[in-house]
């Protein structure tokens, strides 16, 4: 295939990528992000993990080390197996804090320390530069390969790498620094990368299918060839080594989390954590597809190509050698995609880190005006510093590529970068899972690990110094990984345990570990700082966006205009939004500077805690107040009901009194008038006088009862307490009551021995009660052969009880609760005398005596239980008694 065609196709492909990125950015600007936001696009963008190193180098790696190449893919698969509880959490917390990079995440967690972020940026830059060089080199090598095939072509030199680097820098600057968005998402770049991911996959799978079914006889044949390789002494390197296997899995698992470009696509570009539901299985599936054909290609390449062929380029040379030009072109585009997408995302991530953690803080520090109110355009500076950083990273990669001369085996550089960024992992995991982790620990861990990495991994890989000789059988890479990570982790834990974090850090630690919204300290600055804050935001976001944001915030507070109250909530929101543009540490420092030098102190921290507690208490108080209110309302309602009932009762009582008084009065009046008439027989006269006498007596009794009741109810009854024998009292009561309906012969059933019980009480009052109850029984018992049963129960626990039970019809259940009420006289034709106050008086007497009287249902007749108190009443019933006498 002519080289010019290749160049033309390549240019066309680049134009396509620019076009896609441009279209996606336009669509996103117009708010049409539906398909841009699809989890599949997100998943495909993750494939930036598969750089040219894996695209070309995996086959070379597999040629040398067999299955070991798979560790680079298995590590991430294991991480994604824990997507549900691990990655989702990481993404959620990072989104919550508007984290812009891996360095920003760690800096924000450890007290918004910019120095820490700067250190991590440094490691990232050191690790990434050779890695970028590697991508440029792979593109150059693949170009060279095609150029060699077409003799007439212009000789390809390292200028290819320069052109590629320049083109990529242009693309990255165009689509990576278009705006200083608060959420740092780049729809255009992500969409272009997703498309490149498809090209990569299709190219590699197509080649694999061609190799397995075109060159070999299907999978079984491949497996057979691999089995045969085990007999080949040249394949001794294929025997897996457990220590290397484990170490490589660890670093590749760490890489998926800590590589700047991976953090960019995995966390920063993720709109939410829900897309991980798809990516959780789809990304491992992508990796699976990318690695399935690696060994077959390696095996067939070794078999069909000359021994001098570079295994790192089998994917290109194999189809070329077989005359499959189109397939070779497709594979070339795949490799080109892998290299470019990696470089683009990597430079975006690195430029964000460099700008946010190196250049912007440096500038803020250099130009610190006395007033604290700058007027220049910070937004322009940040964007320009990013562009500059992109150029610098790309340039460094190109320089490194030129300097190294492309002699290194490709795979080594990738692993060097992986191992370097893995040094961030302990601080990252520790920061997310352990509230005790602190900044000193992070410094110590990251610092010690990265220095060790520089000395024993990075410098030897670029030809400076070498690893000290190791004991035989110890793999240098595995040793380096375990050594750096153990020293790193130990230093991190040790200094975290012995150090004490400052308040900001403790607040952030709580926020990260517990995945709760961060809170800014409560000390609000003066209201006059609102305008400088707006000015500051304008410098970062530009005037329109800043004004929009401030007005929206003011409106949310219910204010009109552009200046919201500087509440802690607003300051927190503003800081987080700013940190989305310039990083947590810078945003924090800027707000502190503009809003007045407020460094968070321990007492502020206590305030925050106190405020939370106050809010909680307030909520509780409100809740209590509400229930109190309800309770009061209920009580009021009940009191009202009771009053209404009392009023009804009072009316009924007055009506009853009236009736009870008028009835005898009627007889008295009628008969006394009759007596005045002259023509009466002596017999009638005597009879009528008798009636008048009876009715007058009835009236007197009624008035006595009323008086008695009123004295008892008011608690002013005078008690005359003395010792008495219950037997005697019952005897007297029976005698007194026998006059009532004397014509009825009652059988009295008593248990005399038990009745002989000494009680200390007011004997006359108790007798009154006994007489009343027995009289009632005599009056109302309707049995043909009436029996009255009297039992005394000695109850040491509760005081003695006297049960008086007849064998009549008893009182029906509905009325049982009423009989002790005033005037509740049972409607009975046989009633006589009493005005229905008897039982009411009995109850009052028993209560005054400290006992009670109650109706016993289910005794086969009317049954009353008179209960005496366990402890006798002392002297007088109540304190009012003396006053009453």
């Amino acid at each position, binding site marked *: 295939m002519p080289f010019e065609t290749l160049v033309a196709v390549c240019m066309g492909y680049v134009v396509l990528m620019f076009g896609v990125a441009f279209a996606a950015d336009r669509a996103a600007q117009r708010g049409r992000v539906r398909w841009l936001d699809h989890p599949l696009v997100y998943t495909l963008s993750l494939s930036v993990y598969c750089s040219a190193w894996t695209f070309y180098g995996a086959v070379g790696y597999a040629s040398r080390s067999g299955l070991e190449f798979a560790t680079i893919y298995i590590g991430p698969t294991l991480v994604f197996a824990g997507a549900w509880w691990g990655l989702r959490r990481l993404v959620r917390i990072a989104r919550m804090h508007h984290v812009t990079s891996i360095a920003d995440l760690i800096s924000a967690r450890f007290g918004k320390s910019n120095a820490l972020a700067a250190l991590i940026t440094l490691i990232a830059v050191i690790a990434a530069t050779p890695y970028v060089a590697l991508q440029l080199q792979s593109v150059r090598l693949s170009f060279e390969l095609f150029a060699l095939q077409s003799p007439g072509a212009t000789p390809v030199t390292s200028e290819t790498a320069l052109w590629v680097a320049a083109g990529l820098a242009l693309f990255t600057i165009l689509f990576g620094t278009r705006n200083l968005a608060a959420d740092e998402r780049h729809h255009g770049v992500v969409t272009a990368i997703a498309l490149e991911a498809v090209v990569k996959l299709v190219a590699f799978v197509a080649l694999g299918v061609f190799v397995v079914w075109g060159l070999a006889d299907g999978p079984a044949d491949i497996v057979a060839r691999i089995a045969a390789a085990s007999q080949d002494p040249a394949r001794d390197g294929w025997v897996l080594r457990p220590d290397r296997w484990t170490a490589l899995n660890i670093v590749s698992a760490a890489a998926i989390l800590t590589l700047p470009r991976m953090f960019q696509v995995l966390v920063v570009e993720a709109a939410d954590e829900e897309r991980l539901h798809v990516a959780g299985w789809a990304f491992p599936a992508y990796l699976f597809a990318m690695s399935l054909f690696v060994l077959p290609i390696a095996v067939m390449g070794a078999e069909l190509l000359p021994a001098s062929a570079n295994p790192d380029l089998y994917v290109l040379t194999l189809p070329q050698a077989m005359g499959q030009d189109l397939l070779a072109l497709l594979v070339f585009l795949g490799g080109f995609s892998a290299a470019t997408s990696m470089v683009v995302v990597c430079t975006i991530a690195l430029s964000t880190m460099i700008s946010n953690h190196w250049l912007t803080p440096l500038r803020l520090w250099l130009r610190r005006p006395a007033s604290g109110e700058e007027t220049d355009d910070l937004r322009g500076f940040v964007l320009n510093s990013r562009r500059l950083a992109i150029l610098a990273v790309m340039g460094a990669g190109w320089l490194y590529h030129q300097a190294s001369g492309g002699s290194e085996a490709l795979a080594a550089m990738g692993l060097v970068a992986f191992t370097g960024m893995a040094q961030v992992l302990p601080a990252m995991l520790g920061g997310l899972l352990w509230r005790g982790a602190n900044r000193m620990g992070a410094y110590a861990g990251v610092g010690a690990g990265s220095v060790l990495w520089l000395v024993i991994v990075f410098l030897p890989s670029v030809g400076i110094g070498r690893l000290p000789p190791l004991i035989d059988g110890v793999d240098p890479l595995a040793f380096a990984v375990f050594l750096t990570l153990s020293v790193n982790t130990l230093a991190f834990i040790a200094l975290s345990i012995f150090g004490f974090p400052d308040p900001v850090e403790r607040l952030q630690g709580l926020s990260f570990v517990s995945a709760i919204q961060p809170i800014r300290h409560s000390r609000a600055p003066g209201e006059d700082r609102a305008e400088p804050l707006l000015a500051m935001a304008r410098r970062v976001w530009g005037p329109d966006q800043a004004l929009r944001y401030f007005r929206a915030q003011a409106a949310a507070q219910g204010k009109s205009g552009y200046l919201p109250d500087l509440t802690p909530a607003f300051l927190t929101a503003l800081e987080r939004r700013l940190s989305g543009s310039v990083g947590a540490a810078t945003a924090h420092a800027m707000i502190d500077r503009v809003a007045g030098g407020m460094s968070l102190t321990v007492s502020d921290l206590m305030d925050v805690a106190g405020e939370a507690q106050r809010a909680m208490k307030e909520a509780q108080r409100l809740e209590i107040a509400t229930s109190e209110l309800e309770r009061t309302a209920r009580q009021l309602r009940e009191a009202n009901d009771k009053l209404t009932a009392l009023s009804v009762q009072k009316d009924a009582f*007055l*009506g009853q009194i*009236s*009736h009870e008084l*008028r*009835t*005898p*009065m*009627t*007889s*008295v*009046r*009628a*008969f006394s*008038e*009759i007596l005045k008439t002259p023509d009466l027989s002596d017999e*009638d006269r005597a009879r009528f006088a008798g*009636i008048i006498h*009876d*009715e007058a007596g009835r009236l007197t009794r009624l008035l006595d009862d009323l008086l008695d009741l009123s004295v008892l109810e008011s608690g002013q009854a005078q008690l005359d307490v003395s010792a008495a024998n219950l037997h005697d009292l019952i005897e007297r009561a029976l005698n007194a009551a026998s006059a009532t309906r004397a014509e009825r012969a009652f059988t009295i059933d008593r248990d005399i021995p038990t009745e002989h019980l000494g009680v200390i009480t007011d004997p006359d009052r108790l007798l009154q009660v006994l007489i009343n109850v027995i009289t009632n029984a005599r009056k109302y018992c309707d049995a043909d052969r009436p029996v009255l049963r009297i039992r005394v129960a000695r109850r040491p626990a509760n005081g003695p009880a006297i049960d008086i039970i007849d064998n009549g019809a008893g009182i029906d259940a509905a009325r049982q609760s009423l009989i002790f009420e005033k005037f509740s006289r049972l*409607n*009975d*034709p046989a009633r006589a005398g009493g005005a229905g106050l008897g039982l009411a008086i009995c109850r009052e007497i028993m209560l005054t005596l400290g006992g009670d009287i109650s109706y016993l249902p289910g005794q086969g007749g009317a049954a009353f239980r008179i209960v005496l108190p366990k402890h006798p009443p002392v002297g007088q019933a109540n304190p009012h008694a003396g006053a009453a006498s």
Partner: protein
Amino acid sequence: MMLDILMIEDEPNIAEAVRFILMREGWRISLHADGAGGIEAIRAQRPRLVILDLMLPNRSGEEILADLRAEDDLGLAATPVLMLTARGQTGPAAEQADAVLSKPFANDDLCALVRRMLGQGGDGG
């Protein structure tokens, strides 16, 4: 012989007083002492006047009055009723009574009222 007055009153002494007073005036009077069976007594004896106590055991005067007014026999239902009450006030049902007399009452008032209700010609001696 036609009965002049049926009195339904549970207080025996009051009943005795009223009976004595009205008999002395020459009216034939019979007594019933319970609310229960009151309406049956009226139906059976068909008096020219019913004297009804408001507070009666088992069935109140008001209820008996309502029963009476609801009788199918219109002649019977229109029987004049004199209500006796010991309460300060009377319920709405008592308004169906032709007259209400509050206890205690003057004997002359009772006589005058009964005389007016029975009409002068009621003296059937």
